[in-house]
């Protein structure tokens, strides 16, 4: 849930951060969304290493990786680096319509 934007009388002066940066969700900057083919993916974790936003994490319970779409900006580095082409970048509007 995105918080309701505040008015100028409510926020601190000088751009002082009034919430931790994790609450400032940058996922809505995304145009293209990475979608993983679970059959092709070898769990090599290269995408996890390359993600500049730390939006890909390793879940040891599932033995699998997870995308955090709240912070993935859709840069496409993961798709570019994937050695088995398991990640495709999907135009998000299209993906929602499907």
């Amino acid at each position, binding site marked *: 849930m995105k918080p309701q*934007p*505040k*008015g*100028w009388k409510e*926020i*601190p*002066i*000088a*751009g*002082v*951060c*009034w*919430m*931790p*940066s994790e609450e400032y969700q940058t996922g809505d900057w995304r145009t293209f969304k990475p979608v993983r083919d679970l059959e092709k993916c070898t769990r090599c974790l290269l995408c996890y290493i390359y993600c500049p936003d730390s939006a890909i994490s390793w879940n040891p319970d599932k033995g699998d990786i997870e995308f955090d779409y709240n912070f993935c900006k859709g840069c496409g580095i993961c798709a570019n680096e994937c050695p088995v082409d398991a990640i495709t970048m999907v135009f998000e509007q299209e993906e929602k319509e499907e």
Partner: protein
Amino acid sequence: MTVVEQKVFAMSGDEAVAYAVKQSDVDVVAAYPITPQTIIVEKFSEYVHNGEVDTEFICVESEHSALTACLTAAAVGARAFTATASAGLALMHEILYVTSGCRAPVVMAVANRALSAPINIHCDHSDTMVERDSGWIQIYAENSQEAYDSIIQAFRIAEHPDILLPVMVGLDGFFLSHTLENVRILPDETVKGFLGNRKFPLVRNHEGKLVPFRLAPENPITIGPLDLYDYYFEHKRQQEEAMRRASEIIKQVHGEYANVGGRQYGDGLIETYHLEDAEIATICLGSTAGTVKTVVDELRSKGIKAGLLRIRTFRPLPVKEITVALKNVKAVGVMDRACSFGGFGGPVFHEIRHILYDAPVHPHVVNYIYGLGGRDMSYILINQIYRDLERILETNRVEKKVQFIGLRE
């Protein structure tokens, strides 16, 4: 409170500023030399060398760095001062906006000087006029005494918890910066008492806690990192609000200072001279006002209803005060020591015509651009302006709305 006894020193404007800074218990001074400001920091570095102050004096490689050092010092809660002129102020341009945006109460003296090219070291207001929209409070001194008084007041204004805006005090290059004048100096302890220590309003930090607005390891905050289209506009609106509030605070601080120092410059925003019943009046900033007052005295002795309005605080613009002050004037001559190339007259002219648009009776408002690059604004030229205004009043006709005064054709 009673007016304190004061010593009189023969000082140049630059020295008077340096002395005011010395008495203001400033924590950090960072500056880069540039004529005609150099003497300010030169003098101040002597105070540092002689152990007369415990200020951290930072020699930097440019004005861009000088202001950056002051801005960051102010952000940790220090009292910071710098001084510059002309190209130095232009080089600070980027950081001027960062300073006001970070609400860092830096005080800066600007020895007003023309901008290149051609290179010119003498006085005009081109350097500060281009920075009028940078979010800095702007005060223009008429003489060295006022430069001294204004610097002390500037710290109180800038650091006021409801304001937190940087202040620049303009003193006309060479006319004030390099000429000796008798300057009354307050006792050190009076200045100390008048200023007190910096106070910090509380702001909400990233953990939702209310903490003092300063960078401190025990209560970490982040100042001014990034705003996109979501919050930038709101922060700019806050700066505008602080500017609006500043008018009252400037008057208040000026009034309190007058109680101690015994000196007043109008209400702190504008100063009027024989304006109450004036039919013709000029408007100017800075040292020119001194000569204009002499001309007004002479004209008055001949029965001519002449007056002067000196704008001391140009930002925030005293709209209400100017409107009231000009209500009976029939012809107004606005004197601009800066040119807005391709614009309709100079920057002060823009403001005055703009303000008078809402006036119930519209006087004639004409513009005289003068004194660029230190060209002398003589007694004769000012007389010429008043004669021109008299002619406008008699004929009820304006031939030229914008004129250049003291220029060879």
